[in-house]
């Protein structure tokens, strides 16, 4: 399911595709998927709202001069939270006052659901 969560086709198309696919699925899976899509979108909105994308990119791939890639997100949530609250280097600290715990949790879930990076062997231009 993670592969579905890529923004390239836009929310509407993703949602439509998911609904079509889930039409034949058990109702529990349908509800769970819709919930995941909503969580993904909510997390993405917060990722942008709190400006994380400025340094780490909209899909968390990072940039050479600003913020490192943080996808795939391999940190446990506890370690992720500690880092965001008390970061190293020049990353601004995000206290709970400015970034509530619930929002941070949604951002973490967003990062966990981002499509895994492609391998260079899969990209003809980069071989």
């Amino acid at each position, binding site marked *: 399911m993670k592969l579905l969560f890529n923004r390239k086709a836009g929310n509407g198309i993703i949602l439509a595709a998911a609904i079509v696919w889930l039409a034949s699925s058990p109702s529990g899976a349908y509800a769970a998927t819709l919930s995941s899509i909503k969580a993904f979108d909510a997390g993405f909105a917060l990722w942008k709202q709190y400006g994380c994308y*400025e340094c780490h*990119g909209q*899909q968390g791939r990072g*940039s*050479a001069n600003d913020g490192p890639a943080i996808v795939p997100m391999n940190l446990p949530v506890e370690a992720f939270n500690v880092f965001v609250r008390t970061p190293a280097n*020049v990353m*601004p600290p995000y206290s709970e006052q400015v970034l509530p715990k619930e929002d941070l949790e949604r951002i973490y879930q967003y990062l966990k659901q981002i499509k895994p990076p492609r*391998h260079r062997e899969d*990209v003809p231009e980069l071989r």
Partner: protein
Amino acid sequence: MESNKDLEMRRAFLKSALAASTAAASLPFSVAAAIPDNDPSLAVKNAPKFPKADAERPLESTDAIHADVRNPGSDFMVEVMQAAKIKYVAAMPGSTFRGLHESIVNYGQNKAPELISCMHEEASVGIAHGYAKVSGQPMACLVHSTVGLQHASMALFNAWCDRVPILAIAGNIVDETKRRPGIEWYHSAQDLGAMVRDFVKWDDAPASLQHFSESFARAKSFAMTPPMGPVLVVADADLQEEPIRDAAKLLIPKAVEVAPPTVSARRIDAIADQLLAARSPLIVADRAVRSQPGMRALIDLAESLGAPVVDQLSRMNFPTSHYLNHSSFQRELVRKADVILALEVGDLWGTLNSKRDVPGKPESQLYKPDVQVISLSTEYLFMKSNMQDFERYFPASMAIGADAEETLSALAEAVRRRADGPQKAAARARKEQLKTAFDLEYARSRELAAAGWDDEPVSTARLSMEIWDKIRHEKWALVSDTIFVSRWPQRLWDFTETYQYIGGAGGGGVGYGAPAAVGAALAHKDAGRISVNIQTDGDLMVMPCALWTAAHHQLPLLTVMHNNRAWHQETMHIQRMAGQRNRGVINAGIGTVIKEPFVDYASLARSMGVWAEGPIYDPRLLAPALGRALAIVKMGQPALIDVVTQPR
């Protein structure tokens, strides 16, 4: 409050002062003081030689008004520019240089120098900036006195910081009696060069045509002598427009080429020995290389030493595909090095130290305590005080005031000649390790580029790689800075020639990108190459008019927007401040994000005659659009693709 007595005293003083001044006003002060009021004979004997200020003057002859000025001074100025081999002169029109403008297009037939039409003086100078870095020759630019020079000043500052030669010529009307009432007074200055004197290498305001000719030659020589820089010559409007009085006496001196300072053979041997004795030598190059032989010499030097090279990319110093290019690892290599050769490094302290942008600005030393730093730079030879572009002081172990490009060949030869057997073996061993590290980094860069390949908006890695895929088999050059696209072109493309990259603005003045790209494209067009400009959006909005110049002069320039819809650097600064103050960052986009509305760069370009497409958000649409744009460029026209991108 003043008392009545005070007021009476002031009235009495003013009354007497008024009477005295009325009596003296009709005559020059010295004559009035010498003539007693009651002695008419003395008054006649000492009559002033010059008419009274309030005397009636005859109307000027209509013959004079309609004089046929067949030999204006500006024709001579054009010959001065021709003698200096000025190929182009960039200008937005302005009345204080109308005489010179007319002479360029008529007397000089608009050929060498050819006028490059601009829509802003900052664009004129920016174009000259880009042109000089590609061609190695200065372009002239004409600016309109007070107002034009103020517009030009930002770009002159960039050129000063970037050590780039530019010949700025500013019109002015120095003789107040020649100014028409009104606007010409606003467009005249007593000392025009004062406005930019802190960041031009030299300036002068010649008082005669012969003076102009000698100052122009001197200006070009100064501009071209390392450390190079912009210069300013004021061309008085009266000198331009009045007839040449005695043409036979006018001479045009040659602009001498000053041999750049280099290093004695004894000192070169000493440097070579120190480098050869190093276990971990490191070469850092910033504005070091100006030519292909210079790059070849740097390659020879690095290979002979088995030393990694960090290219700080103010110029294209070292091929990106060479296994000794380890520019991504500057910090790690500085920490490890025991001898560092710094070649025209603008910020030596910043290269060897770290300063974090957190409260208190803590700093740390990266280098080993016993490191030997050999700094070879013309920066030691010429500097000015007010602008702080000289960066923080660092006491090099050996500081040499000399030109790196001029010295590299002899240094490489000395290293080859003086290396003994064990030193050669050590160099070979280092090269093997460095080859392996280079290959790993090469693969890692591609891995990172692949990671966001399908992301929307388009990743800067994909943007760069798709461009490379299209141009790699052409005669190409990148004419824009790469710092804002995470240096992806250097990590993914194969740069082998010095002209293929020209660094950035130098002074960080926004609005450099598009004009410099246009100027560089002009030089590349003459050399039969196409140019690519990866153009940041905020920067383009400062000088979009440069696109019109590209269209007007039919320049083969492919502009690909890196449109992250923000002044992204500034967004991060506001975030950083808000984070440090625990105020939350959600307002950091106010004043820093370019939205509501988004700018339609394709329409903007089309409005100025540039073929354009976009905005492109889906990365799959990029390659076909680039193909269409490149076809336009290969026909000799500019094209622009607006690509919405990830922040960096």
